[in-house]
Every structure is written in C-alpha cells, then in structure tokens.
C-alpha cells in the first residue's frame, strides 16, 4: 500500500516540476535508514548484501494535498487538479512552495513556525502553540487564567517548573505560549531525544530534569 503511493508521488512530482525537491525525511529517523534498497533489482541479492532499508514513512504532505479522496491513489482527476491542490500547502500565501511548506510539519517552536491545526479533513499537522495552551487550560479548573500544581495531575506538573518564567509558582497563558514557541532543543539541560524523535519530525532535544519519581513504570 505504501509503495504504490511512493510511485504515484514520484510521478506527480515530475508532472508538476517538483522532481528536484527532496522528500524531507522527518528528523530523528534513526541511523538505520541511510539508504533504501536498490530499486529495480531483478533478482534480489541475499538479504545480508543489502543495507537496512528505511522504516515505514507516513503520508507526505504532498500526497495528502494531492490525494483529495484519501484513497491512497492519485486518479487522473486528482492529477489534473494537482496545481490547485498543491497551493493548499502554501501556508505563507506567497504563491510558492518552499522546503518548509513541503516538509512534514514540526511541533511548535520549530523553525518552520506555527503550522496550524489540522482542521476537519486535514492531515495531522501537529499541535500549534495555541492548541497546546488551549489544551492545558482545560485544567484551569478555577478559571483564573493560571495553572497551578493543584490543578494538574502529578505527572503533568513538570511543565509548571519549565514554563513559569516569572517564578511565581503559576503559569499563565502568555508564559505557556512562550514556552511552547521555544525550540525544545534550546531548552536547558536534559537528555538527548530518543532515536527517531516525533513521528512527523520536530526539532531534537528535550528539557532536562528528572521525571516525577512516583510515576509507575
């Protein structure tokens, strides 16, 4: 199911003159995915002669934009509409598609800027800072516009230490949004990210500090 998608993608890229664009591979794809197995080999070599192939890859934004009925294939009609469909990816409305717009979306704080939430019928775009803030403030049970440790489940409280810029023991919307917009890689301390990183990419790195000690395994 994935290979046909990949072939269609290559074909359509040629049609619309985008063949030169490298498909951005999500950051954190592990080191085991350096090269794909050579295509078109009539008689596959013994497995040990081949480098490890890349892992499964999610639908690329190009494919999501072009595959209007989301059936995994591009029909003649969809190819005909490709030029129009592609412009749905033009998030900065400059009439062009740059690498950032064609790259799988990043979490907030990445250098691609806010990507916008996937609306109804849209692809999973990854959360925006606004969505991040909104989601957290569902826990603002007293409605005072500030999150406190009493309002958050214990395992979620770490963000209070990290986002509380004025160190008043509370996190307001502005503090949380500023935190969400930061590049996580630039946050102080912390271990490196796990191999692979987020499935759709995003800057590496994570903030430091030990997790709460009483969370179960």
């Amino acid at each position: 199911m994935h290979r046909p998608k990949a072939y269609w993608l290559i074909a359509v890229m040629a049609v619309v003159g985008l063949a030169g664009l490298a498909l951005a591979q999500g950051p954190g794809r592990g080191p085991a995915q350096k090269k794909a197995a050579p295509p078109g080999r009539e008689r596959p070599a013994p497995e040990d002669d081949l480098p490890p192939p890349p892992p499964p890859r999610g639908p690329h934004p190009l494919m999501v934009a072009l595959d209007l009925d989301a059936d995994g294939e591009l029909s003649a009609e969809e190819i005909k509409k490709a030029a129009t469909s592609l412009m749905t990816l033009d998030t900065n409305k400059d009439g062009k598609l740059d690498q950032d717009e064609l790259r799988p979306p990043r979490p907030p704080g990445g250098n691609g800027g806010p990507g916008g939430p996937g609306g109804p019928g849209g692809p999973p775009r990854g959360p925006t800072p606004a969505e991040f803030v909104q989601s957290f403030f569902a826990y603002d049970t007293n409605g005072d516009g500030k999150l406190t440790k009493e309002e958050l489940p214990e395992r979620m409280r770490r963000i209070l230490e990290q986002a509380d810029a004025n160190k008043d023991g509370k996190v307001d919307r502005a503090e949380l949004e500023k935190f969400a917009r930061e590049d996580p890689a630039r946050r102080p301390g912390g271990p490196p990210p796990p191999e692979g990183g987020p499935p759709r990419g995003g800057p590496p790195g994570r903030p430091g500090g030990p997790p709460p000690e009483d969370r179960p395994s």
Partner: protein
Amino acid sequence: MNTFTVTAFLGFVALFQGGGHAPAPVLPATPYNYAAPDLPAHFLTRLVRGLDNTPADNPITDHGATLGRVLFYDKKLSVDGTIACASCHKQENAFTDPNRFSTGVLGRKGDRNSMALVNLRYYRNGRAFWDERAKTLEEQALGPIENPVEMGHELGKALEALKAQDHYGPLFARAFGDPEINADRLAKALAQFVRSLVSYQSRYDEGIAQSRSIFEDFPNFTAEENRGKTIFLGEHDRASRGNCATCHLRDFAFFERRDQAKQTAIFFIDQARNNGLEAKLVSDDNGIGDHSLNAGDYGRFKSSSLRNVEVTGPYMHDGRFQTLEEVVTFYNESVQPHPNLDPQLFGGPGRGRVRLMGLDEADKKALVAFLKTLTDRKFLTDPKFSDPFPSERGASTDVRRIGAAP
C-alpha cells in the same frame, strides 16, 4: 539445557545454604544458556541483528543473566520485602501483570499497566518505560526499586540488603569476576536477564520455518489463522485494511518482491507513537510529552511486542482494554484524531480522516486468531526464566496485611 535436574539443583543449593538470612535460590550447577539461545533463521538476519540494543559493555553471559534472574525474583529489593520485579512481571503473562494496575509496596497502586518484557533486546533505540524516560535497560532496571509506588526502597539500602545475603557474593563473583555488589552491577545483571527474555518458539515461528514466505499460508495454521495473517500483513484486499505489519513488524514493509519480506521476527513498533487513544492533545497521561514537554510528543507511548499478546492483557499503557477483541475493535472503529496521531493511522475517509480498519466480524475474529499464534508456551514456562526461590507459603497474606496500612 532446559531439563530440570533435581540432583544438580540440590547440590548447588547446598553450596549456598549455611548462614543466609533468607531462602537461597535454587540454581542449576551448570548455568542455563542465556548467552547463545538456539535462535531460528528469521532471528539471525542482518536486519534483526541490527536491532539488538545489547551494549558492548554489558553482553549477556550465562552467569550474568543467572544473577539477573535471582535479582528479578528477589523481594528484598523492596522496602518491606514484599515486592520483586516478578511481582508485576509474571512469566505466565509474558512478564506483565494481568491486573490493570499493579500493587506495589504498602498496597500502593500505580496508574499504568505493567509492560510486558518480551524481546526487549530487539527494541532498537533501547529505551524503556511507556514514556521511554530510561535511555537503556540498565537505566530502567534501577527505577522501580526507588519508585514509591513500586518497590519503594532506597538504592543504597537495597544494596545493603543484598550484601546481607550469603548467596549474592558468589553470584556476583561469577557474573563480574569478584564479589563486589554495587548499583552498576545490579543494573547490568537485571538488564542481562531482561534481554535474555527472547520469545521465538510460537506456532507462528513454526509456520515461518515450514514456509518459503510469510505471505503463503502456513501449513500449521487453521484457515482462520491464515486469513488473520493475511489481514495483519495488509494483503487480503486492495484497500489493505488491517495492514498491522506496517507498524508492528518493524521494517517488514520494505521488500522488493512480495515473497522477499526482510524482517519477520520482531513484532515491535520501531519507536513510541501516538495511536489515537485520545482526541485531546493533553490528557491526564501524555507519555513522552509529560517529560519532554514537546508538544509533538504528547500522547506518544512506547508499545510492547505483539509476541505473546494473547496473555499480556489488559492492553495499552493504562490497561483500558481487557481483551484482544476490544483492541481490534478500537483499531477497527474508534481511533481518535489526536493532533499527534501517527501518520500510519491517518489518511482514511470520514471523521478526521483517521484510517480505520473497517473489518467485518469474521475478519476481526480471524485477526485475533492470528495474534494468538504468536503465543510461545515454551517461553511462558521455560524454567530458566522462572522463580529460583523456593515457594513461600503465606507470603500473599502478608502482602495484603501490609497493604492495608496507609
């Protein structure tokens, strides 16, 4: 090697007894073979070898894993002597807990389901815990000892408790060359034992050995199991409904010809992913997100191997599904459009464009039947992974009594 030689065991026990403060473990005179199990061909491919996360400074040795086994079953690692690793990781359940949430010391309950410990050696990034907060199995091994809702001990005191047992000096000496007992060695021995927990003798493995390709019907399967396999592989119809293998059989999807699947042994998802359990970005348990604080990590969890999944319920990080049928029904019709939903679960028609399997009842049943072929009875009963301590009658009564305290 797996033959239980009572005479040899008794002789070895005699070596350990005399001065110990607790029952000594019963171990074979010649250690079990942990270092070089007789793995079948599909476990010996380059791809599978490449997944092995065994570090150069802690290879599995027979004596090291033997020590790890004893530690794994030793309740003295807990503050009140009631909980061992094995209390929540039971062999008959593929080293998980059949209860939704495990009970730790003093009756304390966690709020995540115990993870199954199967083939963790082949989880490429080596990380551990549902939220992958431990970078290695060595790091993970010490975590529960000090976790207040699990074993509740202080590491230093736990080490002292080990030193007070006469049998540990010789065991550490055999494993590491001298009898010194320290945290690094404790972690390494436990990690060796956990990495030795490799399951490779299921009916699925027998079928692979009898067939030229994973795609052809296995002669040892029923028609329903073969149908389930086809669904799992995404080969049963043009829409590839099912297609579980794309995620759960790492690197499987990359083959050049239909009969040339490259990886047919390791039923792991290659990294923590969001499988759409929740629609909201933030909920009470956000997996990796709660410690990385990266918005893109919210709702991402590590998952266990599908091997022995028949006996590892309840399922998911919070044990929300009791049966495999419920899990299949979830993927069939209930995956939620979480903002971090894994791309492999995305792209279908309808609500949020989440990709649902859309299987009918017969196909759902067939898929479950296939999953049950991954059960490895030898693994679940292998004496080399079993409790080496003589049984202690009445222990469970003590646990209940202590558990009533706070």
